[in-house]
């Protein structure tokens, strides 16, 4: 039964009547802080008409308590001493609103994260709680009625990144009738998945399941697809973002190109000389090229770094000739800047695979027959550089293959984390290699991580196929023989920990299961969109358990591997979730902005213009007729910089006015 403490402060005086509520939060607060004592103390403070403690203030009965008191005791101010405002400030504000009290007449006191959860000494913690409550009581008297502002939400969505996550989010939103702008840095969408041969555990052909979705994106009237483009500027706030996008010149007029590739055939380069990016350098391409046969959009690109026309301006331009009447080639095409307005943004920029040159002991780059997993995907793929035949860089066909797990992962020297997908894809590659070449395959692992649906069963399947599994982290790959059987081979040295001795295993081909890392420009990107990242560089979600797709910036969502290593099903699921949350925001049609904006008292403004350059959001402008500064409430984010900068203190911030803050400070210091 909640206790009521009758006011003993003789306050039935002129000030607003204050209700103070101290929450137990189960034992989270009450375990350290003597909540009853705090409530009793609160009752002695001037202006407090009612002071209670209760087990769970945020619960329905807890809120009902406050509402009842507001009605019965004509409360004009409420102080709730409980958890962090991030958690329940909204809850209590709504409670006040429902009984007709302005929601900003509430002051929350954090006696959990700032008190009971960080102190062990109960007596000292209780005294601290009392100090904090006292400060809040003094402050709340000065609170003013404020109104939240509503701004409309632009229904358009920007999706950055055209991998499987971006594609799925785009299709979901487009199907819901929203207009999507998809910006992809490469000349084609598809991301990493387009490079895979098969996907685990079903061994579905990656291209077969991806390309229909890619085509849908290309042909959906609700999706504006801008490939070979990058976002260069972001401004605005939730519901109202203005995005600047740089469209790199393909030197092809997209609307006119049919993707027939006659220009590629006709190019003066008889053979390709430039390492092909899609095939990870395992084959060569010409200066004019189609990234891969199923590229979307199905348009060629010209690489100005190697095209003769750009270097010497004297090329025969057989490509133009071959294009004929279509006239799709334009060597004078320039970079274009687009500006669009969107309401929400989804970042799906994906990952980068670990560069094995950082692990010199594995011999990548030194020995021609050491490959990364992604390179092997291209070798195995029928549309790859060797037409699906496993032929090594030196022309050999491997009779034995070693697959090394955890390259660059689970290692304090490179990346501490587990990259989640490598065990599964190593099993997949083991299966495919064995099927394709009949070679002896060895997988060198530390733990076999197969947590997904059908994953452990896939491992069972591999165990049946005669692949050798050696549990031991590989120290080095060498080419010097210690035994006659090792001549001419690459030797993998690892301890077979299950047998407890060291083994040297000679193989023809070494596959490095490289881990996943944040993209190299992840920091630049996240700063542009104003979101946080974790200490490793992955984009940060709002809450690791309960809010995995939203960020701390309203209106910006993340999906897929840019948030952390994950497989395709999880990326797709997350993309759908991000699309749904974006939709929820758009369909609510308005977003309510907190009224914590700054305002200028015109009479006191001297027109010195000190505040204008200070504003990070360019929300302040100078009104020449009045010779005073004016703040655009819509752009103001309430950071408080101008408030502090103004030399004549003529700028104040709602909810954080000087008097309110001073009163709170005085309240704290009044312990003496």
């Amino acid at each position, binding site marked *: 039964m909640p206790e009521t403490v009758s006011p003993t402060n003789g306050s039935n005086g002129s000030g607003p009547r204050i209700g103070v509520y101290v929450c137990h939060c189960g034992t989270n607060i009450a375990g350290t802080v003597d909540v009853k004592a705090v409530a009793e103390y609160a009752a002695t403070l001037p202006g407090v008409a009612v002071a209670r403690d209760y087990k769970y203030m945020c619960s329905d009965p807890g809120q009902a308590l406050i509402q009842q008191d507001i009605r019965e005791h004509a409360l004009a101010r409420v102080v709730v001493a409980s958890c962090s405002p991030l958690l329940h400030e909204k809850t209590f504000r709504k409670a006040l609103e429902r009984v007709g009290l302005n929601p900003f007449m509430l002051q929350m006191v954090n006696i959990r994260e700032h008190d009971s959860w960080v102190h062990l000494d109960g007596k000292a913690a209780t005294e601290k709680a009392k100090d904090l409550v006292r400060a809040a009581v003094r402050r709340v008297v000065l609170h003013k009625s404020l109104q939240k502002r509503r701004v409309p939400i632009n229904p358009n969505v920007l999706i950055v990144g055209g991998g499987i996550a971006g594609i799925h989010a785009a299709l979901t939103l487009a199907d819901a009738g929203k207009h999507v702008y998809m910006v992809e840095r490469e000349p084609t969408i598809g991301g990493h998945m387009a490079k895979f041969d098969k996907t685990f555990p079903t061994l579905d052909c990656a291209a077969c399941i991806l390309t229909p979705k890619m085509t849908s994106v290309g042909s959906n009237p609700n999706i504006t697809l801008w490939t070979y483009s990058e976002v260069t500027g972001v401004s605005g706030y939730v519901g109202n973002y203005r995005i600047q996008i740089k469209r790199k010149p393909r030197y092809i007029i997209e609307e006119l190109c049919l993707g027939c590739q006659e220009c590629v055939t006709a190019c003066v380069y008889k053979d390709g000389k430039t390492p092909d990016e899609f095939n990870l350098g395992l084959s060569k391409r010409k200066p004019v090229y189609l990234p891969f046969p199923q590229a979307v959009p199905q348009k060629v690109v010209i690489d100005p770094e190697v095209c003769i026309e750009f270097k010497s301006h004297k090329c025969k331009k057989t490509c133009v000739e071959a294009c004929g009447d279509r006239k799709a080639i334009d060597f004078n095409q320039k970079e274009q800047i687009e500006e669009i307005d969107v309401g929400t943004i989804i970042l799906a920029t994906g990952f980068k695979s670990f560069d094995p040159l950082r692990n*010199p*002991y594995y011999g990548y780059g*030194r020995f021609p027959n050491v490959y990364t997993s992604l390179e092997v995907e291209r070798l195995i793929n029928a549309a790859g550089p060797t037409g699906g035949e496993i032929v090594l860089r030196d022309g050999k066909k491997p009779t034995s293959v070693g697959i090394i797990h955890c390259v660059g992962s689970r290692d304090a020297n490179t990346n501490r984390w587990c990259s989640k997908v490598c065990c599964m894809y190593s099993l997949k590659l083991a299966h495919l290699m064995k099927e394709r070449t009949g070679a002896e395959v060895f997988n060198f692992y530390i733990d076999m991580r197969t947590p997904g649906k059908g994953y452990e069963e896939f491992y069972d399947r591999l165990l049946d196929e005669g692949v050798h599994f050696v549990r031991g982290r590989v120290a080095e790959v*060498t*080419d*010097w023989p*210690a035994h006659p059987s090792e001549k001419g081979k690459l030797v993998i040295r690892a301890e077979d920990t299950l047998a407890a001795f060291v083994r040297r295993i000679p193989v023809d081909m070494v596959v490095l299961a490289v881990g996943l890392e944040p993209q190299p420009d992840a920091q630049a990107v996240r700063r542009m969109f104003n979101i946080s990242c974790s200490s490793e560089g992955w984009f940060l979600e709002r809450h690791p358990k309960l809010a995995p797709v939203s960020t701390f910036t309203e209106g910006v969502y993340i999906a897929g591997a840019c948030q952390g290593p994950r497989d395709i099903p999880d990326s797709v699921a997350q993309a759908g979730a991000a699309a749904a949350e974006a939709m929820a925001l758009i369909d609510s049609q308005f977003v309510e902005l907190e009224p914590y904006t700054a305002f200028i008292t015109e009479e006191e403004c001297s027109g010195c213009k000190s505040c204008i350059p200070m504003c990070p959001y360019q929300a302040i402008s100078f009104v020449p007729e009045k010779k005073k500064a004016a703040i655009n409430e819509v752009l103001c984010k309430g950071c408080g910089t101008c408030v502090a900068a103004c030399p004549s203190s003529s700028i104040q911030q709602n909810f954080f006015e000087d008097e309110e803050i001073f009163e709170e400070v005085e309240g704290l210091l009044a312990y003496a």
Partner: protein
Amino acid sequence: MKYAYYPGCSLRGTGKAYEESLLAVFQTLGIEVQEIDNWNCCGATTYLSVDELASYALAARNLALAEREGLDIIAPCAACYLVLNKTQHYIRDYPDIKTVVIRALKKIGLDYADRVRVRHPLDVFLNDVGAKAITAKVVKPLKGLKVAPYYGCQIVRPYATFDDQGNPTSMDKLLAACGATVVPYPLKTRCCGGSQKGTLPEIGLDLIRFLIEEARRNGADTIATVCPLCQFNLECFQAEAAESTAPSMPILYFTQLMALALGASPGAVAFRRSLVKVEPVLAAKEIAYA
């Protein structure tokens, strides 16, 4: 440039050629060294196995003696270099060890304030003198001589202060500065077996064989070392380790090659100390050595 010189016990014994050539190189390059007065054995890897704290204190005596002169130490022997560096690190990182060492040193009238740096000749030659300055002083370029640079373990692990741990190149650069051709040598930091060969003969042989064969496979005429024990192992047991028809591989200290290139006297170049002669190779490459 003046430094405190800590030769270590081996340089007076099996590693004599190292000291003789090293001092000649110092002289030619204008590096002044002052041997630490009455230095004691650093304990190498062995004292640490018997009594860790005593080992730090004994090694620290040498650090304190150099600090008293206000000079940084040059320690050519790889084991000495490592032990002195390690002692410094552990004194810094573990307060208990620091207490033990400082007290022991005080009892013999010495202080230690972590002001002295322990350097290796490779570091001093490359970073304090510079490859260009060395090339300028070369009178007998080692043109055509193919050298495999063997660093061994202890100057690159665990403290990689002046060179890369996985693929060090300081010796490569110095040898190239003297005109030699440095061959790729992937085993450049692999252990030679250390003192195990002396105590457990069967074991050391395999390790030695790989090192020599790999150098030969990459076309080396000779292997350049920085550690007296590596030099001893590779030279003295190669016949036992190798297959009977394999030609011999001269094993030299890098300072011997540098001394030769810089025009030092035959006595200083100290080829007479080698058991596997390098003169035939030099003659074949028309590099004068006498």
